[in-house]
C-alpha cells in the first residue's frame, strides 16, 4: 500500500465510524485496522529513503535504469 492509499483508507475508517449504529465487532475491527494503517503511515514517513536512478538509452532506443550516486 502506498501512502496515499493508506491516507485514504484511514479517512474512510474515520468516516465509517461516524455513521450511526455501527455494530460492536465492526467498531473493534475498524479501530484495529485504523491503528494498523496509522502505524504503517508512520513507518513509511519515518523510514522512507530517497532513491535516485538514472535513465539510460541504448542504441536500439530501449530505456533502462541504473543506480545513480549523487556526489
Amino acid at each position: 500500500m502506498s501512502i496515499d492509499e493508506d491516507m485514504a483508507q484511514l479517512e474512510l475508517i474515520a468516516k465509517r465510524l461516524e455513521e450511526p449504529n455501527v455494530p460492536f465487532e465492526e467498531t473493534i475491527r475498524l479501530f484495529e485496522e485504523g491503528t494498523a494503517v496509522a502505524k504503517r503511515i508512520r513507518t513509511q514517513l519515518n523510514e522512507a529513503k530517497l532513491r535516485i536512478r538514472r535513465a539510460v538509452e541504448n542504441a536500439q532506443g530501449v530505456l533502462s535504469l541504473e543506480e545513480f550516486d549523487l556526489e
Partner: protein
Amino acid sequence: MSEIHVFSVSELNRAAKATLEQALGNLWVRGEISNLAVASSGHAYFTLVDGTSEISAVRFRSRLPLPVTELTDGVEVLVYGRLTIYEPRGRYQLVVTAIQPAGLGAQQIAFEQLKAKLHQEGLFDPGHKLPLPTFPRRVGVVTSPTGAALRDIVSVLERRWPLVELILLPASVQGAGAAAEVVDALDRAVRFRVEGAPLDVVIVTRGGGSAEDLSPFNDERVARALHACSIPTISAVGHEIDLTIADLVADRRAPTPSSAAELLAPDREEIAARALSVARSVAHRAHASLRSADERLHRHIQSYVLRVPLRRTELLDQRLDHSVGSLCRGLGGRWSETATALAAHAQTIDLSDPHRPLERGYSLTFVQGNASPLRDSTGVQRGATIETRLWRGKLGSEVKEVDQADVHR
C-alpha cells in the same frame, strides 16, 4: 557677380556640425568596439567598426549608465547617441549616451517575438495545463547530473518527502546542443516506465546563470516539447527573476530548483499531523461507541449477576492512568512536534482501546472460525469448539451445555 563666401575653418566646422546634427540627430548604431581607451577623467574613447568602415565614439563619464569595465575590444554593441563634429579637430564622432551588448538586444527581441507567437498559438493557455499529483512516486528530473539544481532538489526531498524515486534524465543545460538534449530527455521522460508505470511528473531545471546560459530554456523546440508532454511538467530555471519561455509553457513554474521540490510533494510533517488528527477522530469515535456498549453491559452485570467492588470513577481513573496505547505508539515518530502533540493526547486516545475491558476480567468468546464474538448461546452446538480471549492469552474449550435462558433481557 556676387562674392564667393569664404569660410573660416571654425566657421565651416560649426556649419557642418549644425547640418549634421539637424539631419541625423540621435540614433542607434550597431558596431564592434576597437581601440578602447579610458582616460583618467573616466571618459571612454573608442572606435566603432563593422569590417569596412569605422567611426570615432566617446562616452562621457557623467553619462555612463553602465560601468566602463563591461566594454572591451571586439564586443559587438548597440549604442545610442548623437552624431556630431568635434570642432577643434574637425572630426566627426558619435557622443554615446547608452550602450548595451548587441547580443543581448538581439536575444531580447527574439524572446519577445517567440513569446508573442507561442502565446498566440495557445502554448501558455491555462486550460491546457495539467494538475500535479498530490503524492508523486516517480519523478523525472531533466537536468545536468553534476549541476547544483539536482543537488538542491535532492536535499529538499530528503528532508521533506523522501517517499519518491527520482529518475534522472541527463541533459546538458547550457551551450550549443543543450536545447536538443532537453527535448530528447523530455521525450524519454514520456516513454519511460518504472516497473511498468509511467512517471508521475517531470521537472525541467537548472540553476542560475547568465542570459546566455539560460537560453536553451527560451528555445522554441523546448517550448513545444513541454507543451506536448503528456505528463505534468514543472519548470524551474535560474533564480526568481529569470522568467523563461519554458516557465510559461510548463504546467507549473517554480522560481528555483529548491522550490520545485517543495511544490512537487507535501511535507511529511504535515502528512504526519494530518494522519494523527484522523487517527484521533477514529479513536474518539471508537471510544464513544464502546463506552456506551460497556456501560450497558456494566449495568446488566451489576443488576443481575455481580457486585463490582470498584466504583465507576475508580475504574475510569485506572484507565486514564494507563500508558500510551498502541495507536499512539503507531504515530509517535522521531519528529519532535508530532511526538509532543501525541504525548498531550496519549491518554485521551488510550481510552478507546476495545481490549481494555479484558484487563478488567471480561472476555470475548468466539466459535472457532468465526470472526465475530458470541453474544448469544442460541445456535451454539454442544460439543462445539470455542475460543475465549482473555486479557492475556486464549483458552480453547468444548461446549458441554447450552443454556438459552436470556439473562440480560
